[in-house]
């Protein structure tokens, strides 16, 4: 990555608001995301963090506001003015989306290898041997044994499914990955392994990440920057360790003080 790339934001979010009828999903959110930066959005259920994530990832159109993304050619494009074909290409090449429930992000009735290879085939890879080599490589990187390559994800444990989902997303070397509670619903030990894997992959690949979580420990381990949401508003934002160690807003102080100490 050149220094010029590093000095321009990858994603620019301006005054994004989403209403559900009369109710507010998220309100007037603005921020920049920089290359290689991990931004965590925290808040309790119903705070609007998932609404915001869906708006950012073009899965849900905002009521007002603009979201611009720096394409691989360097041009900033308004995501909601992209054509459907462009948007799909973006989502399967330059972006990733890791769902909380791995079944939402995987094809459960095709093999692990095909799950990883699908994006490659979608962008025109037509050499079976190459696809298989890539799939093998990525299964290895997410610590799934090579002899599971022809097994369905249905036979995988929750942690393995989640790692498979990550491999499936990263195989096209995306620049931006959205994650929705990627460790939710996993055992603590499985969570720790997944977090460590994510942390290393994000650093090695220089990924930009927007991660939604209600778990402050996940935010501390993975993110550079933190956004605290409450009732649709961003109430506090800053360096992750600054917000967690020196929380300013009453709600953030409550969140931080609610962490169970082990």
């Amino acid at each position: 990555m050149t220094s010029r790339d590093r000095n321009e934001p990858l994603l620019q979010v301006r005054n994004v608001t989403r209403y559900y009828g009369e109710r507010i999903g998220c309100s007037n959110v603005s921020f920049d995301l920089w290359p290689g930066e991990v931004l965590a959005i925290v808040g309790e259920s119903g705070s609007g963090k998932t609404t915001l994530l869906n708006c950012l990832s073009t899965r849900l159109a905002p009521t007002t506001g603009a979201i611009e993304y720096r394409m691989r050619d360097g041009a900033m494009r308004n995501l909601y003015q992209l054509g459907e074909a462009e948007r799909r290409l973006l989502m399967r090449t330059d972006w990733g989306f890791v769902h909380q429930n791995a079944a939402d992000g995987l094809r459960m009735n095709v093999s692990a290898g095909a799950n990883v290879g699908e994006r490659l085939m979608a962008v025109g890879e037509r050499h079976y041997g190459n696809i298989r080599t890539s799939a093998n490589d990525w299964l290895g990187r997410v610590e799934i044994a090579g002899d599971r390559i022809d097994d369905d994800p249905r036979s995988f444990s929750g942690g393995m499914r989640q790692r498979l989902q990550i491999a499936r997303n990263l195989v096209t070397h995306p620049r931006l990955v959205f994650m929705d509670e990627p460790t939710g619903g996993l055992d603590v030990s499985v969570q720790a392994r997944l977090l460590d894997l994510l942390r290393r992959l994000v650093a090695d690949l220089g990924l930009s990440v927007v991660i939604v979580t209600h778990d402050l420990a996940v935010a501390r381990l993975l993110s550079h920057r933190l956004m605290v949401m409450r009732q649709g508003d961003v109430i506090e934002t800053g360096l992750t360790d600054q917000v967690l160690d020196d929380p300013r807003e009453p709600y953030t102080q409550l969140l931080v003080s609610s962490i169970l100490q082990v």
Partner: protein
Amino acid sequence: MPVRLYLNNVGKSFTMHLQGGAVIPVVGNVEFSVNAGECVVLGGPSGAGKSSILKMIYGNYRCDEGQILVTTGAGEAGGEIVNIAGAEPRRILQLRQDTIGYVSQFLRTIPRVSAEDVVAEPLVAQGANEAEGREKARELLSRLNVPERLWTLPPATFSGGEQQRVNIARGFIAHYPILLLDEPTASLDAANRAVVVRLVEEKKAEGVAMVGILHDQDVRNEIADRIIDVTSFHAEDAA
């Protein structure tokens, strides 16, 4: 020697919303500067705000009032001057990578990463290759008497003292023009204290500006060029 760090009228208080909005003043009117190659030690009893000052310089605590100016870069003249009190998060992250180091007592262990890689990480982040980083990490671990059989193991299971020394090695490995020392010698034995003193001397010779909190009287006497009494920075004055 040029000034590396300058705190100008810095003030800090905590508002405890969970306790009825009680405001706890920490420090006020903090003003001092640190030159390249100088080690300044913050003095005063516990609770005087020494640690808060270090954390503000590192960007870990917010600075409510005043300016914290640092000169970036490694050269004699330094690069630009940045006010940490108002800097963007990504600017602070950049400063933590190339300008300000922090040696603390507590290691935030990272699962499944070996001790030598934990130590090498800051140097690698500054652009060194992995072999170079590992070599220097081994050298430091060896100087700090961490047994060689532990180097390739993740430090999560090490004893408290071993973890502390791993973290000291991690703090000293990279070149930062400004280094913050947060009780680096607490609970170390005499031999390892002496190693830390030597490491500090070496950094001084390289022109590193240091701010430290050191309760150990002997170590303090050996490395401090100046001692600043934090109790003189009365928060009440700021209020």
